[in-house]
């Protein structure tokens, strides 16, 4: 059964890379608590240290700046809590783990192409003297749109603000340079690029303020208490190394989009005018609700998604597309297609064929329903 499926939902979760799998299993078998001073403990510690170097190398950070967490959601939450700035400015297209991490945030609107308006950012920062934290994601999970992080950092730092960047969807897919960008905090998640689920990291720039929100045994240099998920960390490290040497190009995505637009010339590719991740396409099928598309494609053996998977399964209108000014009825027809390390060209051809079948069968017929909803 597994072979019959075409999995194009890597932004939800990416299958574990074989080398990462081996590292995970090896570490699970070996056991050991990295805080123990005996040999078994020291071996576990060595695994953690080595993975820390690998993860640091992926994003151009120093190993000491990497704090392992249970994933991207925790990393985002602890960055926003840990920076110690009560005033927070976040972009409207952030993941819920940023948007809901605190109350009373100031929301930065985005332009039609999904990109943060630097003028708005500058003006908002100038509106108050209170030191702020700015949180802007590296790449959007639904549209793949890349934000101009270096510019955000320049504007924010000039105003005395700290910058957090949720790079969960960027790292491992395109090159991310932590020290080059100059951000103060950066969130990572392993399972978005072929590492195991349940592990991520918050990268904290040396010298940036950080107050941990989870207290206990003093692990991670007192920045994140709790016995280290050694196997997860080991898998994260290997996946980081592999991802680093295999970053995707835009060729397949462009081919896919051209093919779909040829089938349905009125379809919209969201964020088309912006720099985007090479693995993500967010496209509408005119008149066909995303839910219908997802189910039909699933029956055809293709896994894709309608917006973010994190909303506990609820299919809600995409806040990201709405923030980009997309009409609600149209937003409900948007499908997210995301490739990953094990995607092959045939997968894309299969998707194009299935999409064409569906569109020819039900295109436009569903529109009344979509508008009524």
């Amino acid at each position, binding site marked *: 059964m*597994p072979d019959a*499926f075409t999995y194009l*939902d890597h932004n*939800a*979760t990416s*299958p*574990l890379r074989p080398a990462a799998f081996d590292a*995970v*299993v090896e570490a*699970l*078998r070996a*056991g050991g*608590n990295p805080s*123990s*001073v*005996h*040999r*078994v*403990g020291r071996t576990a510690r060595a695994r953690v240290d080595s993975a820390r170097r690998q993860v640091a190398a992926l994003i151009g950070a120093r190993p000491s700046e990497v704090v392992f*967490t*249970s*994933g*991207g*959601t*925790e990393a985002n*939450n602890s960055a926003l809590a840990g920076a110690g700035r009560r005033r927070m400015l976040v972009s409207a297209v952030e*993941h*819920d*783990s940023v948007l*809901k991490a*605190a109350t009373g945030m100031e929301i930065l609107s985005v332009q039609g192409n999904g990109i943060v308006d630097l003028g708005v950012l500058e003006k908002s920062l100038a509106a108050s003297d209170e030191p702020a934290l700015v949180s802007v994601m590296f790449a959007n999970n639904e549209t793949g749109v890349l934000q101009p992080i270096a510019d955000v950092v320049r504007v924010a730092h000039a105003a005395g603000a700290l910058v957090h960047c949720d790079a969960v969807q960027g790292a491992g897919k395109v090159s991310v340079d932590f020290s080059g960008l100059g951000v103060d905090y950066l969130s990572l*998640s392993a*399972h978005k690029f072929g590492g*195991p*689920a*349940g*592990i991520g990291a918050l990268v904290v720039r040396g010298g940036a303020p950080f107050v941990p929100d*989870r*207290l*206990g*045994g*003093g692990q991670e240099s007192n920045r994140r*208490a*709790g*016995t280290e*998920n050694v*196997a*997860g960390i080991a898998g994260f490290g290997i996946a980081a190394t592999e991802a680093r040497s295999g970053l995707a190009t835009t060729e397949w995505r462009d081919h896919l989009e051209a093919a779909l637009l040829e089938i349905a010339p009125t379809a919209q590719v969201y964020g088309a005018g912006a720099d985007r991740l090479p693995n993500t396409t967010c496209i509408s099928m005119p008149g066909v609700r995303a839910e219908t598309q997802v*189910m039909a494609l*699933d029956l055809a053996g293709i*896994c*894709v*998604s*309608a917006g973010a*998977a*994190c*909303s*506990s*399964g609820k*299919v809600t209108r995409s806040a990201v597309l709405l923030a980009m000014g997309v009409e609600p009825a149209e937003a409900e027809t948007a499908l997210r297609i995301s490739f990953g390390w094990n995607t092959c060209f045939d997968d894309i051809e299969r998707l194009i064929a299935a999409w064409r079948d569906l569109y020819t069968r039900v295109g436009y017929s569903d529109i009344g329903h979509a508008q009524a909803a």
Partner: protein
Amino acid sequence: MNAIAQIRRNDQPIYLDYQATTPMDPRVLEAMMPYFTYKFGNAHSRSHSYGWEAEEGVEKARAQLAKLIGADEKEVIYTSGATESNNLAIKGVADFYKDRRSHIVTTVTEHKCVLDTCRHLEQEGFTVTYLPVQQNGLVDLDVLRAAVTDKTVVVSIMAVNNEIGVIQPLAEIGKICREKGAFFHTDAAQAAGKIPLDVEAMNIDLMSISGHKIYGPKGIGALYVRRKPRVRLAAMIHGGGQERGFRSGTLPTPLCVGLGEAAEICMKEMDGEAVRLTKLRDRMLKGLNAKLPEIYVNGDLDQRIPGNLNISFAHVEGESLMMGIKNLSVSSGSACTSASLEPSYVLRALGVEEEMAHTSLRIGLGRFTTEHEVDTAVGELVHHVTKLRQMSPLWEMSQEGIDIKSIEWAAH
């Protein structure tokens, strides 16, 4: 048990540190495997079969875990481990009920993450009572009763201590909490799967569980949160709203599955395993006592999980002993603090003198410990303690009848 062959190769030291972490049971790994490979979906992806498959695994595991503690599966929340569970339980209820109740009761021998959380809450305006423990490590119920007031929001007392393995009288504590209207949280990281736990019979409202202490994976744990009467929590990690809004974040499916499987195995084998481990522990203690004078077990020996011994070897410093017994993986003090040179605060709380605390080792026995390993360990310990005593000025003095306390030691 052929599992042992898989767990330990001959060139590896004998693992006697089961309270720091337990090796994974191969059966647990087996259960996790498919979820690492072909069942890799995101349990929250409701739109395709990969997601459903993952969700099924996660929910089965939740039921397995609930069964272990006599809870309903809806009352179990996945976390990244016991540290997070403890933080969430205590901060969560304290924060939610802060307008009505602002007092917390705990004990001085709790795990660091509970104590640090309580200290943090003190800075936020809560009052915390840190109950002493008796010489055997157990909390005095009368002292507890007197400490809990109508302002107490939560009583957090661990089920089993990580250093000395003593079991607190949970049912009695639960009863007192219920009478006084305070929530009862117990850190059961060291207890789950080793002693019978029943959240109903024991009136437990919140319970923390760790995967890697029950032969499951690291990076996963759970928090039991009672639904009737309902306990409410302020979440610490916000986002996608997973785990009923108590804990956001993509669930690591293989880890959840491993935790569930580990719980089920523990439950099935608990009784037999307790008998076996008690026998092994008694054998070890007998073997040591036969050859070594002046060794002392810290903490109550009866009210204790079978797989723990904490022994002071008078006049032999623990770290040097650990360096000698390099074929044994044991711990001096708690693993989380053993990088520091402070003597164990748990032992100090029992009234163990500082010099004695420096001579203690924690020996943890578990599922893969064999009689042969116990005998080898006894031999190694006897050899090295004897050797180090020959080298110890304190041993020499005590043999000469000099009272060490009569000497004026320079503090440094």
